[in-house]
């Protein structure tokens, strides 16, 4: 079952990567590059995990998966300066990506706590168990990721047409300013 669990973690990283890339497409330029790099790194790491049958660069990947949360929080806090709005930095896809990243981070932390990984492939479960594991993991990942993709700016435009575009600012208290 260890190999199925590792595949699920790779699926979670793929989901987070897809969401970060989709959000990057409409994000302010200053954040677009960071999000695109993060999304690409998540996809590459997931592919390497599947191919190598172990978690590559565990400590770096653990830090990277948590960086996604730091990036989101930082962008929201600095939203006025960075030009971040709910539309170009949508919270639902980012929340789903963060959830997936937290799953990855916790798994990596557990793996690191257990010590070094074997370089030999872990024994695989029976073929039907493996297929059931793959199918359940895929349905869960896509079930989480697709609603998030539909909330990205490109997804909204695709589903509702270009006239669906509008701008909503993050409601950040600024200490004394009465708002508008």
């Amino acid at each position: 079952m260890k190999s199925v669990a590792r595949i699920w973690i790779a699926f979670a990283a793929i989901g987070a990567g897809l969401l970060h890339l989709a959000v990057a497409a409409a994000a302010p330029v200053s954040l677009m590059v960071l999000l695109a790099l993060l999304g690409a790194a998540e996809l590459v790491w997931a592919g390497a995990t599947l191919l190598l049958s172990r978690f590559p660069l565990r400590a770096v990947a653990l830090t990277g998966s948590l960086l996604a949360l730091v990036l989101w929080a930082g962008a929201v806090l600095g939203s006025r300066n960075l030009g971040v709005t709910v539309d170009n930095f949508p919270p639902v896809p980012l929340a789903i990506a963060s959830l997936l990243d937290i799953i990855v981070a916790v798994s990596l932390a557990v793996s690191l706590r257990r010590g070094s990984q074997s370089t030999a492939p872990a024994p695989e479960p029976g073929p039907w168990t493996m297929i059931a594991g793959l199918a359940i993991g895929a349905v869960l990942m896509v079930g989480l990721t697709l609603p998030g993709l539909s909330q990205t700016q490109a997804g909204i435009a695709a589903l509702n047409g270009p006239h669906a575009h509008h701008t909503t600012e993050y409601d950040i208290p600024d200490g004394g300013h009465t708002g508008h």
Partner: protein
Amino acid sequence: MSTAVNSKPALSRSPNRLVATIFGAVYLVVALLGFIVAGGGVGFLDTEGPLLLGIFQINHLHNVAHLLIGAALLIAGLSSVSAAKGANSVVGIVYLLLGIVGFFLVGTDANILALNTPDHFLHLVTAIVLLGAAFGADKSTRAAVA
């Protein structure tokens, strides 16, 4: 070194062969049902079409794609582990790209496969299962060959 060794595991013992065979058979059935449902009432490249099982939107190009993909997966699954792995990875990558790109084509003239949101869900799930099997399963077979 021999590729024959790589192809030895029986169909029932190889996740890649099983996944390719099952998905291939299902997509062939879906293609045939699609041709019946679409009939003559929809154009080959229409951006909107009838719903298969009341859920998945299709047109004839979509049905042809299902037919080809189903046949490729089924043949590969029935052939060998290496063929199944190759077919699973190629079709998986194609479906992953389609699942992502197709998502942004809905409502545009470029939606020549008449895709809707349930289609994207199905394509992405298929992609993830096929890629997971291709890159994550049958490792012991590969190790034995190496």
